[in-house]
């Protein structure tokens, strides 16, 4: 995930008929069409449909932008996802650095521990956090019993709880993409910097961080999209008091049976994620271009 190939490889000279290349792509195209393009089309179609009369309408969109609740939900989703992306990347970076560079025998253990959360299901892990963060949960109970606080701290059913839970869920993915990126940096660069008098901290600041920007960007992107599309964790830890688009869509479908409005919210969520991904990828390509342009000028 550290680099995203944006250009197709040039056709090989004298390669056999191009159609054979498309033939290889056919199965995956078919699968994508059936399971991705079709449902997507249906969803877009539904967003323009009145739930009762099934006649075409723009009312769903009008409602999304005017009822206030929907835009607030979008805003909450964005804030939550940004916080999760930042937390995952900041917390994951030191672990990823260790995993990428360590040759100690503890490395395998740390790697297993870093990825182990993925083995337990999302719901299980989220319940774990609920037990810890609830009003009658572990932390509040302990603090009350110690006499440090009189009434429970608001640790659950809010942004804080959801960010904590999602960070835990998404962290392994952030660590993986950061590790790949840091592993791609020649260890001799660090040694070279050290020989030139750079302290451990300077090596990280001047060599490792700038060179792992692609990994940081992809970690941010993965975390953001995973957080924005997560359902179980915000549902359990955010509850009715902290609703994000994913939980609101679920509500619309199950309780209000308003598929049209749910479709609009889903499209809004999708557009937000696409926009963020687009920004991230463009930043990366621009950075790459800038460097090669400067090289071009010089030579």
């Amino acid at each position, binding site marked *: 995930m550290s680099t995203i190939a944006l250009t197709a490889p040039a056709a090989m000279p004298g390669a056999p008929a191009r159609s054979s290349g498309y033939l290889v792509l056919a199965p995956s195209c078919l699968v994508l069409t059936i399971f991705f393009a079709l449902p997507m089309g249906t969803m877009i179609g539904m967003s323009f449909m009145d739930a009762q009369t099934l006649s075409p309408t723009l009312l769903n969109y009008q409602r999304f932008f005017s009822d206030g609740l929907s835009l607030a939900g979008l805003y909450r989703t964005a804030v939550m996802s940004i916080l999760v992306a930042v937390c995952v990347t900041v917390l994951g970076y030191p672990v990823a650095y260790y995993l990428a560079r360590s040759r100690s025998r503890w490395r395998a253990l740390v790697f297993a521990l870093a990825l182990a959360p993925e083995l337990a299901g999302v719901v299980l892990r989220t319940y774990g956090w609920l037990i810890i963060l609830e009003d009658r949960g572990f932390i509040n109970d302990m603090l009350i019993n110690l006499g440090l606080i009189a009434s429970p701290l608001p640790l659950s059913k809010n942004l804080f709880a959801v960010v904590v839970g999602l960070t835990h869920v998404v962290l392994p993915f952030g660590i993986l993409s950061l590790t790949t990126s840091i592993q791609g940096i020649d260890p*001799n660069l660090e040694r*070279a*910097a050290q*020989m*030139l*008098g*750079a302290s451990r901290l300077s090596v990280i600041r001047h060599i490792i961080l700038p*060179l792992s920007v692609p990994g940081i960007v992809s970690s941010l992107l993965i975390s953001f999209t995973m957080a924005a599309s997560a359902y179980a964790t915000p549902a359990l830890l955010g509850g009715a008091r902290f609703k994000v688009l994913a939980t609101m869509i679920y509500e619309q479908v199950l309780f209000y049976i308003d598929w049209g409005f749910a479709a609009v919210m889903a499209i809004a969520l999708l557009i937000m994620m696409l926009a963020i991904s687009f920004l991230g990828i463009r930043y990366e390509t621009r950075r790459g271009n800038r460097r090669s342009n400067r*090289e071009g000028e*010089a030579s």
Partner: protein
Amino acid sequence: MNSFDIELVSVSKSFAGIPVVQDLNLQIPRGEFVSILGPSGCGKTTTLNMIAGFNTPSSGDVRVRGKSQNRIPPERRNLGLVFQNYALFPHMTVAENVGFGLRMRGTPKAEIGKAVDAALRSVRLDGFGSRYPKALSGGQQQRVALARAIAPKPSVLLLDEPLSNLDLKLREAMRIELKEIQEQLDMTFVYVTHDQEEAMAMSDRIVVMWQGAIAQQGEPASIYRNPATRFVADFVGRSNILSVRRSIPGPTFLELCIDGTQIVLRSDCAGNNAVQSCCIRPESIALLNGSDSGTGPQNRLDGVVRRIVNLGAHVELLVEVATGLSLMVLVPSSRSSLVPELASTVTLGIDPQDVQVLSD
């Protein structure tokens, strides 16, 4: 204060119980170009890493200008290091690369600029400062790496096979240039290589390492002329190594009976009767004309030419002088009239001073 820039005092290093360097003692005087030469796995890179500070000796002491370095991390040893793969920072321009060491030392910007220009000039890369490493050729990148290492004026420059990624022509040109730069800067260079020609061409002194220990050290010419052990004779240059069955010390020379043959060679070396082997460089063997006698070399052997290999500047002959014993003989191509035909009989002459006694 003594005049040694680097001293290794009975340094040993083992990895996971496997000894890599054993009881190494080495003193490198200030301003010398010293090569540590050996085949891969001989411990030369480990030795370099212990000097640089990336490996800590299992026992013994590494000293730089008389000061023990065992507890000092690499970034505070004030040594320079040039890597085989250059290890240039890809996200920095050439000037930023070269200035990095000074920046880390907190040198003012204006001074860094001057020092960078001077360093780039000394490697003949002035005007390349604003480029990125990727836009340079391998040879230019290696020069940048060199400029980067010398810009902060380290007390010693360590070089880890810096030329082995370059093609032959460039490598040969860089040898001369490296030596010139070293002399200009009057800096101590410790050069690790497995290429004996490279070591020969540049060094004031060569330290030949084998199996974690020093096999021999000395000036390039003396190592070539007087290899001490069978390994050094074999590794440095080409040689005919003969097993000795018996050696008889004479009044001014040593008589060596070559194993499995009736051949007796005279050597000017001092020695005893425990000599195991001897070495004769192929270029020191002369092809004698039948009429040539008396005043020439004292060892004369008749043999049959079994193989002729043209090496360009030289022609290599394989001459069978006894059953199971062939000698390699190098004849300059310029004297091609002397080159005999295949399967013809020739007489070889070997000066006793060219028969070198080896210890194992």
